[in-house]
């Protein structure tokens, strides 16, 4: 039995009523931090991605490492394949962002936030950024395992940091897509299903061999697949050295994809309001 004693609410000194506006970046920061904190309170969602990334790295290296001597001309297959396991991890990381949005929709908290003057963009960017940061963490673990297996990054620690920067962008890009799907479907199963659907994208690219060795339709697919350019940038960081042209192409492509998927998430939210 609850018997609350009701006391008067006093106004807070210094608070001039509902009129001040929080700068956009502060909003994004506050909401991202909240998303990140709650994601870590539900670690079951984070661990599979971590295991998956390391698993891919070890299994690809073990099964293809020997054969790769022929086409990599002395380059490390570990450095070649590690970016791929980062991208595989990014797919499950994006799933986390989608699940976070679904969780908020289910609990009603998403509506609670929509009822506040918070910027809709900040509301969407928060789970995307949080999931991308989780991906950076997972990717760091993959890199550590890679180094333990004998990886020697050609660009050193700075190169590894740059690689993690790409991971962040990939995370944001894929998360935008999944968040949009979550908002359109309102369904946890459709959202996790969608992240599996994007999994083949990691194979329609220069997955196991350099792009130059691809032929036929797969070559065309790889040329159109944005993942190809991000993979190439990361591989060059680990195996070759600082190649500005390759790195810029990778950066440019990932930024474009981020903008597109964010726009998709944003319009999905608008469509959702119109539908209700």
């Amino acid at each position, binding site marked *: *039995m*609850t*018997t*609350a*004693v*009701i*006391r*008067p*609410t*006093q*106004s*807070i000194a*210094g*608070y001039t*009523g*509902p*009129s*001040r*506006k*929080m700068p956009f970046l502060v*909003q994004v920061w*506050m909401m991202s931090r*909240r998303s990140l*904190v*709650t994601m870590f*309170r*539900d670690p079951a969602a984070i661990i599979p991605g971590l295991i998956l990334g390391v698993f891919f790295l070890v299994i690809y290296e073990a099964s293809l490492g020997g054969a790769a001597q022929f086409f990599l001309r002395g380059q490390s297959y570990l450095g070649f394949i590690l970016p791929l396991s980062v991208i595989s991890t990014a797919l499950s990381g994006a799933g986390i962002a989608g699940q976070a949005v679904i*969780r*908020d929709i289910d*609990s*009603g*908290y*998403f*509506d*609670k*936030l*929509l*009822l*506040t*003057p*918070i910027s809709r963009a900040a509301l969407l960017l928060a789970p995307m950024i949080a999931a991308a940061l989780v991906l950076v963490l997972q990717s760091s673990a993959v890199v550590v395992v890679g180094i333990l297996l004998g990886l020697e990054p050609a660009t050193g620690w700075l190169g590894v940091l740059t690689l993690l920067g790409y991971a962040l962008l990939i995370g944001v890009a894929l998360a935008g897509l999944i968040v949009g799907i979550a908002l359109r479907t309102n369904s946890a199963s459709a959202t996790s299903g969608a992240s599996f659907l994007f999994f083949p994208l990691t194979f329609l690219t220069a997955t196991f061999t350099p792009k130059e060795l691809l032929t036929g339709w797969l070559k065309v697919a790889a040329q159109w697949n944005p993942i190809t350019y991000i993979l190439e940038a990361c591989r060059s960081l680990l195996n070759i050295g600082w190649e500005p042209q390759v790195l810029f192409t990778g950066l440019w492509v990932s930024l474009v994809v981020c903008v597109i998927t964010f726009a998709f998430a944003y319009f999905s939210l608008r469509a959702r*309001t*119109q539908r*209700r």
Partner: protein
Amino acid sequence: MHNREIVVDNLVKRYGDFTAVGGVSFRVESGEVYGFLGPNGAGKSTTVSMLTTLSLPTTGTASVGGYDVRSHAYDVRRVAGVALQEIGLDPLMKSLELLSLQGRVFGMNYKESMRRAHQLLELVNLTEFTARPVGKYSGGMRRRLDLALALVHEPDVLFLDEPTTGLDPASRRDIWKEVARLNSELGITIFLTTQYLEEADQLANRIAIINQGVIAVEGKPTELKANMGGDAINLAFEDVSLVDKAISEVQDMVTRTQVDRDTLRLYLPNAAAAVPAVVTRLQAAHLHPISLTLTQPTLDDVFLKVTGQRFTTEEKEEKVA
């Protein structure tokens, strides 16, 4: 003094062929408590969701605090506090985190938001439970925290969508007290939807009864009850068949009759004084009621009159659920 009115003009919400809200119009004055009363599925929540910018009206206009819900949605969100029927709390977060984040979203700095959070926790009597994630709260605690969240920014207009559904009687009365206090001390306009007649009767200055998407009747509770045609004499008979016979006997004495199962309700201006005459007339016709009570009209009677159905059953079902 802010504009704290709600002005609604012919608001319609359609989903395909289904009309959830079929053209409602009303005006809530600054500082008024307006009760929106109706059974499940009457269109109450849909109306709230349009007024609070969660969904867009199909046609019609509405403004909250002087701001149009379509063209000035941002300002509506700024001045409105909302506690929806579906409680909106992240189960993984804790009360202080939720309240402080809410304060910050409304423009407070961290210190202000924490001070406000502590104030509100005290207000809703949840101070002891700050260490527990909200997911482990009881229904009543969650409801109170949700209300606290709606109050963080001292809204001009407060929307409460069935704020006491699922609460025990003590918590319900606490919420009533708080709603009344917010209204009288801070002058907050309150738009309250409810399935509980007693709640509307207690709290609202004016009520509208909404049924199947349209407002069936609107007015002050006292006026609505007075319009029922005075007090009523309730007669119960052993057999339902006797009810019709009784009606024909006393028809000329009463302003209106109403039948509810085996009970006949007679509305007449001066019911108490008329009892002997009614009884004499019935006995002359060999009709012997097994019970006779005198009642003042209730909102339930008003509801029955305007919708043709009883409200009470709904209320009981809800209590079980």
